């Protein structure tokens, strides 16, 4: 039976050593949707993707993808599940010693017995989908940041996965590349019937394309809703985030002793 929810995260906690990063996260991603996970830098968004991809195991709770509990799978099971997932890393993570074509062909050559002619056609189709068919012969070092991100997207969808995860897909892009990448995520999700999980802190760009948003702060989900609900939210954290205010629930200052004490002003106010 096919579940309506492709990704289900139940009460997941995780920490690096003694430092807790996630403290009881609940999240679901329905099939065919673009879901955004937002939050300030270091709040555990990327950790969440690593948990879904099985690169780390939760200390508590369950992460289910297509009904399978990721943390309980053995290596073979995990690799089988990962063949149905694609991931776009923050800066593309293209293999720098092989061409754009070979990057996109990588999974096809590793996981299928397809003849080289068929691989060529599939790679050119994927590259065409991201508008870079003409760049197939280039090396990754010859690409701009936006182009590298698009090639990585073509590579991520090479095996027609059911889930694609994007780690900060908008970071460091110029406005044109930003729009192109956003539109690609939406269009590929709709045309290929994927489910997309987008980890980002680019509010304006992502609210244009997503179906549902989760806000993570200090290891918990502090808000969730559709793009419209998020835009109109009067929750202080969401308001600060959406409007880019310097101070608020997320303070401008890192915790520190009183200013006057640090400057040794002998009790006089700063």
């Amino acid at each position, binding site marked *: 039976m096919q579940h309506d929810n492709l990704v289900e995260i139940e009460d997941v906690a995780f920490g690096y050593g003694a430092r807790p990063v996630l403290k009881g996260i609940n999240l679901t991603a329905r099939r065919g949707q673009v879901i955004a996970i937002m939050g300030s830098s270091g709040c555990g968004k990327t950790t969440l993707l690593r948990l879904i*991809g099985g690169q780390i195991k939760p200390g508590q709770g369950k992460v289910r993808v297509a009904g399978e509990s990721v943390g309980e799978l053995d290596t073979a099971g995990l690799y089988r599940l990962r*063949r149905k997932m694609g991931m776009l890393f923050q800066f593309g993570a293209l*293999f*720098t010693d092989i061409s754009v074509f070979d990057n996109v062909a990588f999974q096809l050559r590793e996981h299928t017995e397809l003849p080289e002619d068929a691989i060529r056609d599939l790679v050119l189709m994927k590259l065409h989908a991201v508008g870079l068919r003409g760049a197939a012969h280039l090396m990754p070092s010859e690409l701009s940041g936006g182009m590298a991100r698009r090639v990585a997207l073509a*590579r991520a969808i090479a095996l027609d996965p059911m889930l694609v995860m994007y780690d900060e897909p908008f970071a460091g892009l110029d406005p044109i590349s930003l729009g192109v990448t956003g539109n690609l995520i939406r269009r590929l999700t709709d045309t290929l019937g994927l489910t997309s999980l987008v980890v980002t802190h680019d509010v304006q760009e992502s609210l244009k394309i997503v179906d549902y948003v989760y806000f993570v702060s200090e290891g918990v989900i502090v808000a969730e809703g559709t793009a419209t609900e998020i835009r109109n939210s009067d929750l202080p954290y969401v308001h600060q985030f959406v409007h880019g205010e310097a101070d608020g629930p997320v303070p401008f200052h890192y915790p520190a002793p009183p200013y006057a004490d640090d400057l040794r002003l002998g009790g006089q106010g700063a």
Partner: protein
Amino acid sequence: MLRQSIENLGSRTIQGVWRIGFATRFFLAVLLHSGTAFRRFGLTIRELYFTGVLSLIIILVSGLFVGMVLGLQGYETLQTYGAEESLGILVALSLVRELGPVVAALLFASRAGSAITAEIGLMKATEQLSAMEMMAVDPIARVVAPRFWAGVISMPLLAALFSAMGIFGGYLVGVQLIGVDEGAFWSQMKSAVDFEEDILNGVIKSVVFGVAITAIALFEGYDAPPTAEGVSGATTRTVVTSSLVVLALDFVLTAFMFRGIS
């Protein structure tokens, strides 16, 4: 103060033991996942080019000069005893038993070992290894194992070429430049150098050095913190650690191999 020092010592000891354990597990994982390196031998051949062929220039030129210096120094010493016709033996034995494997290994650690660490470290820092894992491809099998076997295969070949060039360098200086009798040079070398005791032991040494250097280089790269500073530190550690390990292993192997030989 004392308590802090003891805590630091304890912490470093635990870290050191943990790292040795991790390195051992890593090495075993490489051996266990070596199937791909042989089933898809093209991957290993590609790495043989990078570690072996691209090291040829430095190995050949160094071998030539080391042999030429041996020719000069050896002649100076041997003529004192009127034994300059034994120059071929001195040059050949020095090279195949000792200098060939050891100097080639030190050069290999500097040239290929550092390159392997930097490459794997940067692949980790730029998330290429994570990307591979997420594509359900094991980076140990696909990236690490072919490099390991390429290093193990290329090291004895490079050492042999180093020794061959060294002998040629000794011949150039001893026979062509100084005028030692050519027939005596080659015939004495041929009669004194034993295939099993000298050449084979030299090959065994270079295989052991190849395993040690490549394993250290790969581990340092794989374990490097994913930052510019982390990768540069790992590269330095590869060269320093593998050079020291080569010299220490050389002593141990020499003690076992040549203790009964006159």
